[in-house]
């Protein structure tokens, strides 16, 4: 997928906003991901050029932190909590069921671009364990049998 010239100009603007300071790399990456949804290679090269650092350094940081993604997320990003509290209350089974229903593995996006599946560690809603989030909405006290219905709400 090619990134538009407009998007790349936006990236340059973001770098400039932080004075092209390499010390602000992580803040810049956060802003880029917020604005574009992901940080593909082309964007990383632009950032590297603006900040005057090697592209592999930017790549090294992007791949180090789980928050940054090099592939676009689905329209409805699904995150299943695998924190300890959710795990002991069956979060692993919820994840298995999401994988089965969506037909994708963790870190993937469905071919129609609708759903992407990720794990996260603790949203802090341990009282509702096991928990998953779809976009901003938190689903608590999940049972694997609920998943099909929840996904179908977004499918229509």
């Amino acid at each position, binding site marked *: 997928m090619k990134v538009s010239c407009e998007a790349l100009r936006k990236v340059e603007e973001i770098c400039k906003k932080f004075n092209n300071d390499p*010390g602000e790399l*992580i*803040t810049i990456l956060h802003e880029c991901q917020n604005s574009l949804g992901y940080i593909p290679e082309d964007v990383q090269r632009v950032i590297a050029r603006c900040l005057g650092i090697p592209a592999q350094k930017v790549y090294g940081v992007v791949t*180090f932190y789980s*928050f940054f993604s090099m592939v676009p997320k689905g329209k409805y990003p699904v995150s299943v909590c695998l924190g300890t*509290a959710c795990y002991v209350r069956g979060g692993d089974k919820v994840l298995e069921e999401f994988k*089965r229903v969506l037909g994708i593995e963790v870190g993937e996006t469905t071919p129609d671009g609708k759903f992407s599946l990720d794990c996260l*560690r603790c949203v802090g809603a341990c009282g509702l364990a096991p928990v998953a989030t779809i976009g901003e909405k*938190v689903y608590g006290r999940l049972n694997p049998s609920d998943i099909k219905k929840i996904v179908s709400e977004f499918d229509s």
Partner: protein
Amino acid sequence: MFINSPDALESIRQEAVKALSLREKSNSSISAEAAGLEKGTPHMQILCCGGTGCKASESAKIVENFHASLEAHGIADKVDVVVPGCFGFCEKGPIVKIVPDNTFYTSVRPSDVEEIVTSHIIAGVKVERLLYQDPGSGEHISDSKHMNFYRKQLRIALRNCGFINPEDIREYIARDGYKALADSLKRDSADVLADIKASGLRGRGGAGFPTGVKWDIARKFDAPDKYVVCNADEGDPGAFMDRSIMEGDPNSVLEAMMICGYCINAHHGLIYIRAEYPLAVHRLQVAIAQARECGLLGKNILGTCFDFDIEIRYGAGAFVCGEETALIHSMEGKRGEPTLKPPFPAEAGYFGRPTNVNNVETLANVPVILTKGPQWFASIGTEKSKGTKVFALAGKINNVGLIEVPMGTTLREIIYDIGGGVKNGKKFKAVQTGGPSGGCLTEKHLDIPIDYESLAAAGSMMGSGGMIVMDEDDCMVSVAKFFLEFTVGESCGKCTPCRIGNKRMLEILDRITDGRGTMEDLDTLENLAKVIKDTALCGLGQTSPNPVLSTLANFREEYEEHVRDHVCRAHKCKSLLTYSIDPVLCKGCSACARGCPAEAIVGEVRKPFVINPEKCIRCGMCISRCKFGAINVI
């Protein structure tokens, strides 16, 4: 509102106290009677929890409904809706509290709002069905102070959480906020530091290093630019105390950072916070903006020559960044890899400058230590661990939530008195403390008084305070594997013992849970764990084998059963399980077949069904569906 002297602060406080008086009063004198506008109560307040947990259960909608309802009844001028931070009782969220009568409503739905307003707020009759019901006596408890969950707690770090509006600096000031700073600035910084040392406060992030000593070391290194860093990268899965403090009482963290800055002669503060905590970030941003606006951050604070300002830096999802050298690298825009100490950050930290790093909960204790005196703080707790500790109680326990107890409280008191015991009447098996760096403790450890030393002696650690209760349905080998998967995923890869050693340990655990393990594997596991503990570079690697070592020590027979008998007594390890339907007990109702996500169950209605083992994914759904107990698992 500009505060340029201690006197100005005091006059703001006196003004702000009035707004809080309704809540303070309800805190001291308990009235069993419900207040109500028709009963002549002139003014009431509705406190509706605005923590992440309750927000997940639509508390924002509840607040919206309250506003709409009060407006519709024309009583919006007599009743305030306040959104404080977390009350701690997350199990029964969303929580709504009514003052002045201190009524504590639990599990409130947006649809309950109208009834609370017409019945309680207007007519003065409590909504009985929303009160907390004591599971033992069945009695409805109206005031949270009488609930077992709160009775044994002592809230110091959480003193303002669930009480003040975290987005209004005046409410913090009303609770003696910034008084410790004002008093400190009048004193010699060495004396203030001596107070912190005398209090015996130790780092709440896990390792328990004495805070005063840490500050003293940073103070000795002279440089034009020094930094105070707040470590808010709470990465422990299942621990959320730092988040709750930042969401519920952000100003206490800011004030403590300033006091630290004054003691070590630093003028820059940085808060390193996880990007996964949007609400905490927002509340900190609001608090910083308000503090700057009224001159509590910036130049010549409170009319003295002390300057201090605070900025927020964002993490990006890496557990290892909780380690202070890794955290500093991350703030510099690099990969968050730890480096060998010394040099300690106190000497060469952020961009080579002397840097002092403290955790959120540690900092939240600082202002109150100075206002109430170090002796008061040192009188709480055990000989070597002073004060209180916040724990995030979760897992198979009745009262999930955030609690704060004096050091020296036993695990039994926490789990059974405060936590209300194990969920669904199951048998207690283990409690995991310290997250991925800690260990699993058993029945025999329940009566040890909790402090840094006793937990370490028992083979676990304090860690940041996650406390996960497990019951007889949890397989301890799987639990060890769960934590190791976490560590393998989060290992930064810099040092070999952690990068490769943990991976090999995980492979062994995979084999064991898969029924392919050998007895030699258990010895290899133990040896590897000890080597990693001794040789890894940073805290993450050095503590990563703890879950394996502690389960091996306390539950060795479970490991042996997996290896020798191919049996998982908790029925967790799928490869060791076979599902079947008892043809005698099965009534042929088809509930299991309809619920089976793999469509592995077939049969005719009113005749026994059968499970196709090829298709069965061993999810256990049929067990939860079957009303006749006809599903066998062996």
